[in-house]
């Protein structure tokens, strides 16, 4: 963008740095000088002192210093600040002039060189006549200097040189041209900086000293100027705190000036400059709140200083610039680390700047119409070149009194300015500012503000006649307003967009915006809607629609030509519009009337259409597209000569479609992919309006929600209930309802391992033959994996199935089933583990049917599931006991003992135990030679729930073989029970359940003593008792035996004996007991001791197989004898 008069001068916006001029350097031809200059220029980072260097010729002419005024008495200032002043001190008048001169201390022609140097210094001094600029000399030397004080020649020659050049010692420097150039240069520039500092300090003092000569009536301008100068020098001196103080004083002085029409621009310009400086320094000092406060104050003070009414646009331009500059300062501060917030960010300032630019444009349009001819002697042309003072008028520079000197000149000046303003590209300025603001608001999370500004940008592009860009922006933000339901705003944007579309001749956009402006989201009144509808109809008729009101007349002609071109083409012109994401004036809602249909049912679709436009609309065709395109042919409704489809405003119209689904689509979803509505017709324009899915638009979801919340539901017709209509865009095709019944009969619970019988009865209620009936029965898939391994299904109930039977029997053919007939079959299930299982019974068949006269082969199926619990039929407990029914913890070898088994029924059905058997390991029956097989004692026993059957077997451990370990438990065998339900038929298989007998440790018995005792005795009758002592060891055993006396018995036999028994032999001891008392009596105790091995066999261990007591009958009558014998 070209610089305008409102831009701030660059010398104001830069950071002032001390100006030091370097002379005597030949940077073009002398390599050494070049290196020195580069060292000064290169790498000027923040840690180097802020100096701006410039290479000047030795005889450079510095700006002439005017003779100093000695009295201000008759002096009347002509303006506040000269335009050249800042630049002069930044770039023209140095704080220090440095003369570079090549001279070594031991130079052979020292004298000559010294005087040459002095001459050069003198030339510079003359040129700086009257200024306080310092002069310094730098000697460029080839040799490295000695430390100070050691080189006597050097110090002596240095002082003579100082004298010759009239320099103080501090202003003479030596620059050895050696390795450490940059280091020397940095030391040099620090020294220069000190000098510059002193210079600016004295300059400030000098300006300050003028103050006493000034008086408040005539020199008001000078007060401002002097404060500004002091501030600026302070800035050059890098004393920003004082600079800020002076600028603030200067700012308040500016506003103390008397304002009138002729000087108001100058005051505002200066106020703007000083304000800029203050804000800039505040941001630099990291006090952004001070900056904002200063800016607010500045705006409040200046807002009303409009000045000349004919040039009101100048004020707006100036205001705009103020905001823009502040926004830029703010933005720059943020880039340097300041954090801004949502409600205080540069965007607001850019936005305000844009707003003032818009105002400027308005005023320019109003004020600049009248001006016709550019005045002949150009009042803005300034022969001298530019203005002397900032903010003054070119045709009356330096004029400070209230009235303009020449009214004619004044008028022509204003006209010239107005004409100049006409050529300003206002829209361009506004758009640039708006887009700056948009970028900021995007950053600070203000999406709505951003949209608002984009609307303004779009409108500005519209004013600038860049309709394509305008449309793009408006279209982009429109959807935000639409989805957030700010319809008044949407309508206003649409109105502008419609105009753009018309002016561009864009049929598509134009039609779309017309449709939305006619819709319910539009806040236009009926009259406007009628006008738009008329235009919409013209588009359909392929005519040129009328221009929108308020269109720029110059653009109208061009647009009409565009429209003529596009209507001139003959033939049918199709235009597709997808309107789902808008709020069009024709609303459409489609639905399947049910979320699912059986395949033998008609599928029904309803499409509701409603027009919100002011007049009836005729539709030429309505069609629904479905996911399976084969059905589309059934869903078309066309307008014919006899049957005209017309939508009346606000009156919903229903269209019904129906079709029969294909058998392949069973189990699939049918979806509406789009609904299309055609308006217009052949040889005109054919407008195809389409909705995705089942219709609806941006606003309808909210309306449906509101309608569902509403309490006013009673007495609603379709018109009022339109919002309640819900969309149903898909339906499921499911198989035909089976007309058969499936009955299952069984007797739960199932018992473990049994062949559980389930009877299935299939009864047909169909009118035709059910063909190819198949049964799938068994464990329902998808249950615990363990269940499928412990469940077996079979159709064969005559034998117990093995592990090869599957858990689920698929597709068992049952043949055809005629109407009214029934089929029966049984399935047997064997469950090996307990727990509950779900069983599935699935009967499938095919049926020939007619749907709407069309033959259709339907597959039907009926499922039934049952849950069956499996329980154990009975519990068995087994124990080994001695012949004395004492519990055994080890099995004595080769001695008879007993096995007792208890079978406790837990089945709720009576159980028939058919037999039992023992499969023995390591054990035999008590007398294997006589009775090798044990007889079952429970043959055909029936157990009710809770009843118990007990069996008892006498067993014996065969003698140990040498390799049998005697310490570890030994498996003893299995107990097998064969059983079935009592209720099951007699040919049903018997189930054999096996139980493992407990394992036992074998116990060898070295010496076995047993007794042969009668089952009872009788008082005073002899009772012969025979003891057998058997030595089972491989050694001869010595045995001591004694019989202890007892009160209840007398006895005869050896009372105490000692005997020896050979290995494997048996000793018999016979006693004759004579009972004295009746009842249970303890037999006389037999004490047996094995003196050879006392540890292994105590008397008690040896005695354990002996009977302890005996029943003694009283002495009876002979008659009693008989009865007892009986």
């Amino acid at each position, binding site marked *: 963008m070209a610089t305008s008069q409102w831009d701030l001068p660059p010398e104001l916006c830069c950071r002032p740095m001390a100006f030091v001029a370097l002379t005597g350097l030949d940077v073009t031809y002398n390599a050494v000088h070049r290196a020195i200059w580069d060292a000064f220029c290169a790498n000027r980072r923040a840690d180097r002192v802020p100096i701006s260097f410039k290479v000047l010729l030795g005889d450079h002419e510095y700006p002439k210093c005017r003779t100093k005024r000695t009295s201000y008495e008759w002096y009347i200032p002509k303006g506040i600040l000269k335009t050249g002043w800042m630049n002069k001190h930044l770039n023209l008048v140095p704080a220090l002039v440095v003369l570079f001169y090549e001279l070594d201390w031991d130079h052979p022609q020292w004298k000559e060189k010294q005087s040459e140097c002095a001459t050069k210094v003198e030339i510079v001094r003359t040129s700086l006549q009257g200024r306080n600029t310092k002069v310094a000399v730098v000697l460029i030397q080839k040799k490295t200097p000695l430390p100070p004080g050691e080189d006597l020649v050097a110090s002596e020659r240095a002082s003579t040189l100082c004298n010759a050049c009239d320099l103080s010692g501090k202003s003479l420097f030596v620059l050895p041209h050696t390795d450490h150039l940059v280091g020397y240069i940095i030391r040099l520039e620090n020294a220069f900086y000190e000098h510059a500092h002193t210079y600016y300090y004295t300059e400030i003092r000098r300006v300050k000293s003028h103050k006493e000569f000034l008086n408040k009536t005539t020199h008001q301008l000078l007060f401002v100027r002097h404060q500004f100068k002091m501030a600026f020098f302070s800035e050059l001196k890098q004393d920003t705190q004082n600079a800020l103080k002076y600028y603030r004083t200067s700012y308040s002085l500016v506003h103390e000036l008397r304002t009138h029409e002729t000087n108001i621009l100058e005051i505002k310009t200066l106020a703007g400059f000083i304000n800029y400086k203050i804000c800039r320094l505040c941001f630099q000092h990291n006090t952004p709140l001070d900056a904002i406060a200063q800016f607010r104050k500045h705006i409040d003070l200046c807002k009303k200083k409009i000045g000349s009414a004919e040039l009101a646009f100048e004020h707006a331009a100036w205001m705009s610039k103020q905001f823009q500059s502040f926004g830029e300062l703010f933005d720059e501060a943020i880039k340097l680390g300041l954090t801004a917030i949502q409600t205080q960010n540069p965007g607001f300032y850019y936005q305000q700047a844009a707003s003032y630019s*818009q105002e400027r444009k308005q005023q320019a349009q109003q004020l600049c119409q009248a001006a016709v001819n550019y005045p002949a002697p150009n009042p803005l042309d300034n022969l001298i070149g530019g203005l002397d003072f900032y903010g003054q008028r070119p045709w009356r520079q330096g004029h400070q009194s209230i009235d303009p000197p020449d009214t004619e000149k004044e008028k022509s000046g204003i006209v010239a300015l107005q004409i100049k303003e006409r050529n300003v590209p206002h829209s361009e300025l506004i758009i640039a500012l708006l887009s700056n603001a948009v970028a900021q608001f995007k950053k600070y999370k*203000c999406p709505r503000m951003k949209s*608002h500004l984009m609307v303004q940008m779009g409108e500005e592009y519209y004013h600038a006649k860049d309709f394509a860009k305008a449309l793009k922006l408006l279209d982009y933000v429109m959807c935000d307003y639409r989805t957030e339901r700010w319809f008044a705003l949407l309508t206003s944007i649409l109105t502008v967009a419609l105009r753009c579309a018309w002016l561009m001749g864009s049929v598509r956009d134009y039609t779309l915006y017309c449709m939305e402006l006619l819709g319910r989201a539009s806040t236009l009144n009926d009259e406007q809607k009628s006008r738009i509808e008329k235009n919409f109809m013209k588009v359909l008729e392929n005519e040129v629609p009328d221009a929108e009101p308020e269109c720029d007349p110059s653009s109208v002609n061009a647009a009409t030509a565009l429209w003529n071109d596009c209507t001139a083409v003959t033939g049918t012109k199709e235009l597709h519009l997808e309107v789902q994401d808008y709020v069009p004036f024709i609303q459409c809602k489609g639905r399947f009337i049910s979320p699912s249909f059986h395949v033998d049912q008609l599928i029904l679709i309803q499409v509701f259409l409603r027009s919100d436009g002011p007049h009836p609309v005729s539709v030429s065709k309505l069609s629904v597209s479905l996911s399976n395109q084969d059905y589309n042919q059934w869903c078309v409704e066309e307008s014919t000569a006899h049957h005209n489809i017309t939508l009346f405003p606000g009156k919903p119209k229903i269209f019904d479609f129906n079709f029969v689904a294909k058998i392949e689509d069973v189990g699939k979803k049918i979806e509406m992919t789009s609904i299309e509505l055609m308006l217009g017709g052949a040889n005109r324009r054919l407008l195809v309006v389409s909705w995705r899915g089942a219709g609806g638009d941006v606003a309808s979801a909210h309306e449906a929600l*509101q309608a569902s*919340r509403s309490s006013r539901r009673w007495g609603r017709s379709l018109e009022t209930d339109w919002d309640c209509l819900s969309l149903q865009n898909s339906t499921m095709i499911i198989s035909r309802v089976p007309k058969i019944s499936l009955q299952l009969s069984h007797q739960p619970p199932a018992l473990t391992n049994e062949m559980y019988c389930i009877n299935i009865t299939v009864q047909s209620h169909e009118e035709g033959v059910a063909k190819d009936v198949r049964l799938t029965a068994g464990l329902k898939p998808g249950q615990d994996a363990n269940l499928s391994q412990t469940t077996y299904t079979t159709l064969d109930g005559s034998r117990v199935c093995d592990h090869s039977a599957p858990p689920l029997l698929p597709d068992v053919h049952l043949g055809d089933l005629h109407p009214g007939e029934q089929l029966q079959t049984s399935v047997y299930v064997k469950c090996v583990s307990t727990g509950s299982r779900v069983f599935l019974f699935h009967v499938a068949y095919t049926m020939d049917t007619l749907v709407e006269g069309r033959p259709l082969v339907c597959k039907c199926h009926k499922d039934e599931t049952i849950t069956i619990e499996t329980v154990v039929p009975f519990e068995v407990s087994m124990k080994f006991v001695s012949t004395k029914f004492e519990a055994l913890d080890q099995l004595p070898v080769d001695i008879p003992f007993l096995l007792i088994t208890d079978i406790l029924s837990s089945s709720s059905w009576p159980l028939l135990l058919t037999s039992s058997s023992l499969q023995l390991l390591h054990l035999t029956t008590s007398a294997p030679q006589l009775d090798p097989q044990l007889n079952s004692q429970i043959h055909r026993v029936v157990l009710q729930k809770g009843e118990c059957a007990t069996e008892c077997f006498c067993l014996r451990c065969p003698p140990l073989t040498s390799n049998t370990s005697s310490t570890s438990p030994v498996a003893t065998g299995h107990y097998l029970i064969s059983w079935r339900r009592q209720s099951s038929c007699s040919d049903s298989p018997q189930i054999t359940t096996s139980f493992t007998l407990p394992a036992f440790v074998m116990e060898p018995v070295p010496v076995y003593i047993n007794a042969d005792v009668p089952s009872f005795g009788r008082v005073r009758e002899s009772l012969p008792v025979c003891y057998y002592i058997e030595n089972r060891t491989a050694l001869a055993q010595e045995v001591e035996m004694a019989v202890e006396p007892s009160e209840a018995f007398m006895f005869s036999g050896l009372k105490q004996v000692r005997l020896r028994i050979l290995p494997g032999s048996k000793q018999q001891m016979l006693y004759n007991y004579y009972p004295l008392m009746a009842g249970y009596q303890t037999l006389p105790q037999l004490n047996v001791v094995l003196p050879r091995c006392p540890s292994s066999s105590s008397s008690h261990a040896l005695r354990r197989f002996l009977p302890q007591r005996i029943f003694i009958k009283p002495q009876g009558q002979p008659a009693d004898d008989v009865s007892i014998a009986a």
Partner: protein
Amino acid sequence: MFGDSIRKCLAGLQGTQTWRVGIAVIAKENYPLYIRSVASQSELKFHYTVHTSLDVVEEKISAVGKSLGDQRELYLGLLYPTEDYKVYGYVTNSKVKFVIVVDSSNTSLRDNEIRSMFRKLHNSFTDVMCNPFHNPGDPIQSKAFDGIVSGMMVQTG
């Protein structure tokens, strides 16, 4: 009509504000339930002002949501000052927003008065919601509410 109002609202920028005060009620989903400003010709600008102020309201609500359990004050205070007007916000517990826009030249209104205006508005709004014939979420059409708003406009305008 709307092009017209755009021009007029640009004209409104020239220092002669056409509306002194405006009151808006915004639904939880950020669409307008009730919008009223004193002068009807700059209605559009008022709409934009209220709409853009929702940015700040949303931000303030979400900032509170982060620290759980702290009781939010309904009155949000001055949302943002601009050259021409001041925008104040208030959010009910059901996230319905009230926005009052006052001409920035109107310096007589103090924070306390704005607060009490909001409270009054909230009470009246509650009455509207209590009406069994009012469907929450529909635009407010209530004479009583209109009356309260008009009263405020007279008082402040």
